[in-house]
């Protein structure tokens, strides 16, 4: 599986993401500068955390108009797995690939610590190696992770099983304790916690690794189906 890690000016979790895929998942990864215009060579796309464009105007608001974005939309439409973490999630929201928006954390503080998440739905390509209802520990690191959407959107997300991860103890005020959601098709996941920082017991938790392994499993299965 060949994975793209998109790099914006101000991305700062790109190297972590790259190493998680290369060294922990054991798959090919490549940095893709935001001025590139094609993602055709890749099987999966990661949008890493950070502070793209200094969070100017709103988090993700400027990155959303980068030259790489039409290719990202195309990859999403083609059904390729796309994972946006932290600032990557914020960019996916601004781009309209996922519904809702981010607000400043309820307590105004930047929060950087491991949190417990509930795996709400394991029937996604990102979570097939988890159990539904399982508690996992993944770190968060954000000042604006207070997920907001209106009541109608929230009920629609719930009804369709699109809430993938919830906080066990809501740290930031997100509606419905939401930590991560997928798009309607299920191939675009946005989440505030950083699975790439939890891929080895040495880092405090290896709970994030199964997310990447789930993507790989999905890729292998869909390729096998193509060959058949």
């Amino acid at each position, binding site marked *: 599986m060949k994975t793209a890690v998109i790099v914006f000016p101000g991305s700062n979790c790109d190297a972590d993401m790259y190493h998680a895929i290369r060294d922990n998942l054991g798959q090919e990864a490549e940095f893709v500068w935001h001025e590139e215009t094609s993602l055709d060579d890749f099987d999966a796309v990661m949008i890493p955390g950070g502070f793209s464009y200094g969070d100017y105007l709103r988090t993700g608001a400027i990155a959303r108009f980068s030259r790489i974005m039409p290719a990202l939309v195309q990859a999403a439409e083609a059904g390729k797995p796309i994972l946006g973490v932290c600032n990557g999630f914020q960019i996916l929201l601004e781009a309209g690939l996922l519904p809702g928006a981010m*607000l400043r954390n309820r307590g*105004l503080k930047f929060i950087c610590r491991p949190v417990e998440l509930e795996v709400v739905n394991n029937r996604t390509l990102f979570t097939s190696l988890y159990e539904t209802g399982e508690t996992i520990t993944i770190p968060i690191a954000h000042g604006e992770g207070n997920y907001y959407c209106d009541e109608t959107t929230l009920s629609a997300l719930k009804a369709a099983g699109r809430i993938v991860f919830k906080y066990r103890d809501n740290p930031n*005020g997100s509606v419905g304790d939401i930590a991560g959601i997928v798009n309607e098709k299920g191939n675009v996941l946005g989440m505030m916690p950083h699975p790439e920082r939890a891929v080895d017991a040495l880092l405090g938790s290896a709970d994030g690794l199964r997310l990447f392994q789930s993507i790989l499993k999905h890729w292998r299965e869909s390729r096998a189906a193509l060959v058949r």
Partner: protein
Amino acid sequence: MVVKKVKVFVTLKESVLDPQGKAVEAALHQLGFSGVKDVRIGKYIEFVVADGADGERDIRAMCEKLLANTVIEDYRYEVEEVVSL
């Protein structure tokens, strides 16, 4: 040449909680301004554009596409005519 000066005000929707506003409100109370309530923080953006037929439509497009996130924010704008050299 006649140009237009545009002043855009972006504010959080009424239905959206404003944690920053709450913190500033608490600080104002701390300062002794106890009558203050409902503090909301917004953004002010100004720019100059050439006077054109599509002016208003363009300004709305700029607000909807970039300057405001209409999921959480409302916007309004004022337009002033400016005669420059």
